[in-house]
């Protein structure tokens, strides 16, 4: 049967050569290479649950009366969008669990993209020839954030409506074209009726299609360029060592899909997320406190709260305050992210191809810069909860804000400097792992610097060599292609 099917396709498409190559393709087994797969599988869960939700969601701000199991709103006239989400949550069997899995999957999707980005950054996996995939990956992050926000805005509840109101004001703040941009995006002055329907098309068609397209290219490029790998005996710039796709890696990867789905389903069942029935329907004159966006926009929200009160006025024109934290900052952030591989190539004078990964300590400047940047965004992210922190600590909101304003100035350089010292000390100590490093290496790092790196150079692979690194021994790397040695 299988033989016949394979033959049928092979005689028509000539597939067998590709299938042969695919089935024996080798994937490295290091755990950190699967972080991207978490994102991939969260996305598949998003597609599956999202498809279910589209059958019930009604993307309209026309009004109708909700009649259903949620008592306080039974018989109340609300927008169709809000009514259909209420019905999904209370009156459609399995509707609520699907909604909650979908929302948790969105949070984990973007979270795992960020962790994946960090892994790629700190190991130097973006270096030539992988600049293309770095760019695609950053674009995927932008699209994922955008789709998260558009989905969050659909239920037309009080919290998401407030978010849309801020988004409209941010669009307004863009110099020169802001008013037109806001009016064309929203269909008129806020709150225009068109926005929910438009966001729906964006959320379920345009952005997912773009994500699927870019994701396909992302994976195809990984396939074509093959995975990077860490420096270990038998691994060189010229080979890939790991498991074959069929059956071992496929089983593990499909297993990971089920595992990620399982985590998301348990969360969707046990932990309530976005209870829009408690937030109530959106009315433009109502507001709730505290009001935060989903986590992936927390850094922008925090920046909006931290930036001091100022506007720029030029020749009778105005660049209002929200432009700086909410348009300029994300613009600069993503531009620098996209340009990073080329910036590093320029400043580190390294335009060579690399397939063996750096350990973070091998490139202390990059690692320190990465830690600095992460700290900067983390402080902003936490500052987005300044009102909740004030409430929990019983401190003044402006005291808390002041602390964050100070932290955002001193923490990033401090963490960067500390990271740099730590990486230097780690190299000098020659420890295989951070936990194995003696504490003394950190305190007398300065004296150990030159001494230690000389002693341990060979062991720690600190050199920047990239061709034929390390012996292909241990019975692993027999010169013949695809030689297999059973696991020890």
């Amino acid at each position, binding site marked *: 049967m299988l033989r016949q099917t394979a033959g049928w396709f092979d005689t028509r498409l000539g597939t067998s050569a590709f299938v042969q190559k695919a089935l024996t393709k080798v994937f490295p*087994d*290091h*755990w*950190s*290479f699967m*972080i991207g*797969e*978490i994102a991939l599988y*969260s996305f598949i869960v998003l597609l599956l649950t999202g498809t279910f939700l589209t059958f019930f969601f009604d993307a309209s701000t026309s009004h109708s009366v909700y009649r259903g199991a949620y*008592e*306080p*709103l039974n018989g*109340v006239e609300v927008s169709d969008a809000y009514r259909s989400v209420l019905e999904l949550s209370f009156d459609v069997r399995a509707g*609520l669990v699907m909604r*909650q899995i979908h*929302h948790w999957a969105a*949070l*984990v999707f973007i*979270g795992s993209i960020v*962790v994946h980005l960090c892994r790629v950054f700190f190991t130097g996996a973006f270096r030539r020839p992988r600049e293309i995939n770095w760019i695609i990956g950053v674009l995927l992050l932008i699209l994922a954030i955008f789709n998260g926000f558009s989905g969050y805005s659909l239920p037309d509840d*009080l*919290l998401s409506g407030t978010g849309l109101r801020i988004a409209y004001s941010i669009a307004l703040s863009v110099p020169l074209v802001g008013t037109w941009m806001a009016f064309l995006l929203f269909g008129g002055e806020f709150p225009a009726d068109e926005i929910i329907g438009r966001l729906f098309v964006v959320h379920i068609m345009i952005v997912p299609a773009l994500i699927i397209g870019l994701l396909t290219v992302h994976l195809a490029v990984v396939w074509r360029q093959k995975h990077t790998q860490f420096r*270990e005996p038998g691994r060189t710039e010229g080979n890939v060592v790991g498991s074959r796709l069929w059956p071992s890696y496929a089983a*593990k990867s499909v297993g990971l899909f089920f*595992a*990620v789905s399982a*985590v*998301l389903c348990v969360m969707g*069942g*046990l*932990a*309530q*997320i*976005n*209870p829009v*029935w*408690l*937030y*109530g329907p959106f*009315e433009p004159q*109502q507001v*709730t*406190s505290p*009001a*935060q*966006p*989903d986590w992936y926009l*927390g850094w922008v929200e925090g920046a909006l709260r931290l930036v001091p009160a100022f506007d720029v006025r030029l020749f009778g024109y105005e660049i209002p305050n929200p432009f700086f934290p909410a348009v300029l900052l994300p613009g600069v952030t993503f531009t620098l992210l996209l340009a990073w591989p080329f910036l590093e190539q320029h400043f580190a004078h390294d335009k060579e191809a690399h397939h063996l990964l750096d350990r973070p300590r091998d490139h202390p400047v990059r690692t320190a810069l990465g830690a600095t940047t992460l700290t900067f965004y983390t402080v902003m992210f936490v500052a987005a*909860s300044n009102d*909740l922190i*004030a*409430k929990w600590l019983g*401190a*003044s*909101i*402006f*005291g808390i804000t*002041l602390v964050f304003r100070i932290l955002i100035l001193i923490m990033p350089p401090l963490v960067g400097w500390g990271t740099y010292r730590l990486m230097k000390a780690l190299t000098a100590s020659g420890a295989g792992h951070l936990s194995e490093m003696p504490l003394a290496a950190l305190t007398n790092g300065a004296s150990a610097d030159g001494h230690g790196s000389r002693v341990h150079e060979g062991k720690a692979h600190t050199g920047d060599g990239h061709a034929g690194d390390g012996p292909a021994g241990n019975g692993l790397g027999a010169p013949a292609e695809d030689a297999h040695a059973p*696991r*020890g």
Partner: protein
Amino acid sequence: MRHVQGRAGWAVKVLTALGAVALGGCAYTSNLTSPYRSQEPVADGPERGRVLYLRDCAWCHATDGSGTGRGPDLISGTNGAAMTDFMLSTGRMPINDPSEPTRLSPPSYNPAEIEDLVAYVSAFGGEGPPVPVVDSEAGDLALGLELYQENCAACHSTTGVGGALAAGPDPFDETLIAPSLIRSTPVQTAEAMKVGPGTMPVFGSETFSDMEVNSIVRYLSHLQRPDDRGGLPLGHVGPVTEGAIGWLVGVGAALVIVRLIGTRVGEE
């Protein structure tokens, strides 16, 4: 070595001093309060309201409720029966030290004592409203939701858990919080609306009819036992705790899983 010892000795001195100050502070506070507030119960009787008032309240509010430098009068504005009942039944009064902020806490008196105190204070002639009669069953749930969202949610949150208020612009100001309404009784809710305690605006009988007050109270009692059909409520504060769970549980579990599936460097 000598140097280290010297430093340690210095630290011990500082710690001792700090401890002494802390202990002294406690002693000072208790010294301040004991003459004015005895914890002994007062026997039931026609004089109880007066006795309690003179013992616990008069030092700050004066014997005739006209106020002193330590505390406001109990007559002007919305002061009167409802205000007194609200402050006593929510444990916001009495406070030991006039500089203390008033906080939601367990009441210091039993309901009968509070009733006597309220009767005694109302006799000062405060113009504020009387203790309201609330019948939440007579309210309309949907109307209550609409009015709550329109008038209460901005400060107390749509879920009733409360939120931070404008304490500022001085960063060292004490905090101001719109309290959680989750344990508020129907009468306390109605009282707060009518008298506007602390920094809360007044939502008086001119603005809300009894029916509307009953409706708000009815919706609030629903919020106090909300329909958490989705599972663990995560504090009812929205995306902040959701994001924390998304990272710690969601992304965290996924990372543990890939760590279990994959290998480490040097491990096959």
